[in-house]
């Protein structure tokens, strides 16, 4: 989506506080794990600004820090700089080393990069049908880097990389993680936001 080196953005626009509130709730419903940090991500005092990017994408910026973007007011996807600040707040999958360079040049993320030895897909710790304590954030990463819940199609997910500490991409799943495991091939994330792409290089000041 942001493969182009430089993307043009409209000037920043201040958002109404009511819109800010609704964005805040939508962010929290998508990423319940972000709840403890929300006041730092979106300080109540400072106002959120919106930048419109090509392809009907809106980027939300606070105090010169990009926070997240969405397309057609859809699911919010965190900007990688936010992911780097709060890595534990977002569901992750991991790709093997060989796939990194393809992802970083804007390729669609394919299943083999995740199913191989270096990749990590979620291993659910709570079996289906078992009652889940409501309202409790019972997700997380285990020592190996497996997320503790199967992720659904359309969910935003952070892509970590084998042997690296920081995330290298974020995007929306085009196939649920269960499906990926079963099939073992085909695209997993299309149109991701990755390190060094146009959105990453975009000047938000």
């Amino acid at each position, binding site marked *: 989506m942001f493969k182009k080196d430089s993307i043009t953005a409209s000037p920043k626009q201040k958002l109404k506080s009511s819109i800010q509130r609704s964005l805040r709730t939508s962010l929290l419903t998508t990423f319940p794990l972000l709840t*403890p*940090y929300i006041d*730092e*991500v979106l300080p109540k005092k400072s106002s959120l600004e919106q930048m419109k990017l090509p392809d009907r994408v809106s980027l939300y910026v606070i105090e010169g820090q990009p926070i997240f973007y969405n397309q057609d007011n859809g699911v919010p996807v965190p900007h990688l*700089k936010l992911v*780097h*600040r*709060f*890595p*534990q707040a977002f569901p992750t999958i991991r790709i093997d*080393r*060989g796939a*990194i*360079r393809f992802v*970083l*040049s804007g390729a669609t993320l394919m299943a083999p990069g995740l199913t191989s030895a*270096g990749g990590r897909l979620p291993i659910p710790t709570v079996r289906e049908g078992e009652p889940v304590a409501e309202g409790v954030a019972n997700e997380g*990463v285990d020592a190996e880097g497996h997320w503790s819940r199967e992720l659904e199609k359309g969910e935003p997910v952070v892509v970590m990389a084998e*042997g*690296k*500490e*920081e995330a*290298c991409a974020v995007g929306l799943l085009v196939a649920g993680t269960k499906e990926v495991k079963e099939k073992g091939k085909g695209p997993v994330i299309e149109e991701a936001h990755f*390190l*060094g792409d146009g959105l*990453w*290089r975009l000047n938000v000041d």
Partner: protein
Amino acid sequence: MAEPVHVGRHVIYCGVCTLPPEYCEYGGTVNKCQQWLEKNHPDLYQRIWSPEALEAATASLSLEAKERAAKDAKKKAAKAEAAEQKNADRLANSVVTIKRIERNKRKYVTSVLGLEAFGLELKKVAKDFGKKFATGSSVTKTPSGGEEIVVQGDVSDEIEEFLLEKYKEIPEDNIELVEDKKKKGNAA
């Protein structure tokens, strides 16, 4: 992984390719990144580029994959270098034109063309001009499609000085002063 404290982590980004340093190897400007990191964050440099770390990183790859990766990296580096060269050439060739335009007898405006080639934001520079000279200063579109900064009053010499002082990346030889008389009226 950071403890769940309520403070965001601060990630260091490479000053050359803007990626987190561990991803520099994919950025295409590896050598420069290495130099930068060694100078600015020697501890991180040790962690990422020390021979042991590199050994560990490449050990898991098959020989073929390694070769492929190396080839790819080489290609990318060459590409980045070429782009940089081109950029430098373009910079050397681009000229900033400061034009004094006669608006009325004894009244002038000064237009500045070509600043965008040096990666400056016209809007901000225009604001700076206005502040410096206490005159109106705006970005206007030229008929040929580009954009120029128009400053009220004859400030061409001052602008040259100001540009040289504030934006060191513009070489003096690349600034050109032009006088433009109105077409009709007395031929000079």
